[in-house]
C-alpha cells in the first residue's frame, strides 16, 4: 500500500512538472497583472521558511511563479508531516461585490489546493473555505492593503 501511494505521488509530481512547464510558458506570454503583492508583511509561517499564504492579482485566481514556489514549500512540509491536515482560506479585497467575492475566494483557495495536490498532497487532507471580503488581513483602504488581502492562506487544522 505504502509503495503504491508513493508511486502515485511520484507520478503526480511528474504530471505536475509537465503542467507547470506549460503554465510557465503561458505566463511569459503575458498574464502578469502588476498588482500581486510580493512583500512579506502580514505573512505568517507554517514552519521555518514555509510561508502560509500566496497573493493574487485583482479579479484573478491564477498562481504566480512566486506563489507556486511558496506552495511547493508547503507541499514539502505537508509531505514530511503526514498527520497534519490543513484548511485553505480564500479571500478577496473590498473592491468587489460581496457575493462575487465569496466565489472568487473559493476559487483562489481551490487554486492553491489543486497545486498542493499536484505535489502529492491528498485532497482529503485539505479543506477549503472562502471568506470573500469578510476577513481582511490589512484593514486599510489602500492599494497595498487590497493586494495583501487578495490571498489564500494555508492554516493547520488542530
Amino acid at each position, binding site marked *: 500500500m505504502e509503495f503504491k501511494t508513493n508511486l502515485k505521488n511520484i507520478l503526480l509530481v511528474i504530471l505536475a512538472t509537465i503542467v507547470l512547464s506549460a503554465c510557465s510558458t503561458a505566463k511569459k506570454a503575458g498574464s502578469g497583472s502588476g498588482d500581486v503583492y510580493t512583500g512579506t508583511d502580514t505573512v505568517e509561517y507554517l514552519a521555518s521558511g514555509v510561508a502560509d499564504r500566496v497573493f493574487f492579482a485583482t479579479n484573478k485566481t491564477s498562481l504566480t511563479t512566486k506563489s507556486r514556489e511558496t506552495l511547493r514549500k508547503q507541499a514539502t512540509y505537508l509531505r514530511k508531516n503526514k498527520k497534519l491536515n490543513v484548511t485553505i482560506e480564500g479571500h478577496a479585497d473590498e473592491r468587489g461585490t460581496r457575493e462575487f467575492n465569496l466565489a472568487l475566494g473559493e476559487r483562489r483557495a481551490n487554486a492553491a489546493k489543486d497545486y498542493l495536490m499536484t505535489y502529492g498532497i491528498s485532497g482529503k487532507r485539505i479543506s477549503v473555505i472562502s471568506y470573500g471580503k469578510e476577513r481582511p488581513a*490589512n484593514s486599510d483602504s489602500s492599494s497595498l492593503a487590497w493586494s495583501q488581502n487578495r490571498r489564500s492562506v494555508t492554516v493547520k487544522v488542530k
Partner: protein
Amino acid sequence: MKFFFIYILVYALHFNVAFALIQVDITRGNLDPLPIAVSPLHVDPASEQIEGIKVKNLGEDISKVIENNFRSTGLFNPLKKDAFVQKPDIAHLKPRFEDWRLIKAQALITGKLLVKDGKLKVEFRLWDLTASKELAALAFTTTPANWRRISHIISDKIYERLTGETGYFDTRIIYVSETGPKSQRIKKLAIVDQDGQNTKYLTLGNELVLTPRFNPTNQMVTYLSYFRNLPRVYLLDIETGKQEVVGNFPGMTFAPRFSPDGKKIIMSFAKDGNSDIFTMDLQTRVVEKITEHSSIDTSPSYSPDGKYICFNSDRSGLQQIYVMNSDGSGVKRITFGNGIYGTPVWSPRGDLIAFTKVRKGKFYIGVMRADGTGERLLTENFYQEAPSWSPNGRLLVFYRETKSGPKGEGFSAKLWSIDITGYNEREIKTETDASDPSWSSLLSK
C-alpha cells in the same frame, strides 16, 4: 416574534373616487414638493390609559410618523405645526379650507383616536384644500402597541390617493447589523421598520451571517451563515425562530433568494473552484442545476413572473450581467458598458433591473431595462452595492462603506435609499452599522 401578524380591522368610511385636483407626479424628480399639513390626531378624552404607551401624546406621535414618511419621499413638504389654524377635533369634522390655504397647504390630513377595551381605534381623513373637499376617509381598529403600523398604513393610503401608486411605508427592511473592528466584524441579522424605527435582532452574532432576503410573505428569511465554519444557505422562520440548512450540498452555498412564488430558493453552489446556480424546491427538496459553466455564476434574481433569471457571471472574462430562462436555457449577456457589473435585482414591476457597477475605482448603483438598454447610474461613491427594491418599484435601498485608514479607522457601513429618478438620496439611520439590506413586500395588502 409575532410582530408580523397583527389584527387590523379596516372600515372604509368612504373613498371619494371623484377626480382629485391634487395629483403628485412621481415619475420625475420633484423639485417642488407638495405642501401638506398633517394635523395631530385628536385624542378622545374618554380614552383609557395603557401601560407603556402615552395615550395623551398618541395623536401627536402618529402624526409625526406620517409626517416623517411624507418628508422622506421628497415629493411632499409637511408644514410646521405651529402655523396650524384649527384645533385637531374641529378640523377633523370640517376644516375651514380658506384658513388652511392661507398657510399654503394643498392637502390636509386630520384624524382622531380612541383607546377603549384595550383596543385602539384610529380614524383619518384626507382633504383636498384646493378643491375644498374630502378625498378619503378610513378607520382602523387594532391593539394599541400597533400604533406605528397604523401610522404607516395611513401613510400608504394617503400616498396611494395622492400619487396613484402603491405605497411602501408599511414595510420592513432586513439587514446585517455590524459592530466591531473591520478585520473581525460581528454580524447579526436585524429587522427594522422602513423609517429606521423598531429594530429587532434575529441572531446573536456568534457566527458570520450575510445577505438575508425575505420570502414573498415576509415570514421566512434566507441567508448565508458560517455556522460551525461551514458557509451554507439557511432558512429562518421569523415567527418560530427555527433555522435549517437549505439542501445538502458538499460545499459552500451562497447568494440565496426566493422565487416569486416563495416555493424555491435559488442560490450559488461553489465546488472545486467553480460556482454554478442551483434551485431547491422547499417542499419536495428537489435540487436543480440551472447553470453549468466553468465560470463564476452568482447573484441570481428571478423576474417577478418567475419566467426569467438575471445573474452575474465572469464567463466573458469580467463580471457582467446575464439573463436566462428559468430552466437555464437561452443565456444572454445584457451588459456591455465599460466597467464590471454585479448584483442584478429584478424590479417588482418587471421592467427594470437594478445593479452595482464598478468603473475606474468608483461604485455606482444603477438601473436599466431588462434587456440591458437604457442604463442610468443613480449614485456614485467610494463603495456601495447590493440594491434592493421597494415593493412599489420606486426606490432602492443599498449599503455604502466608507474608506478607512491603516487601522481600519473611519470605516463605516450604512443603509441608504434613493429614488429611481436619481433624486432623494438619504440615509436610513440604524442602531449599528448596517449592510446587505433587503426590502420586504407590503405587510398588509
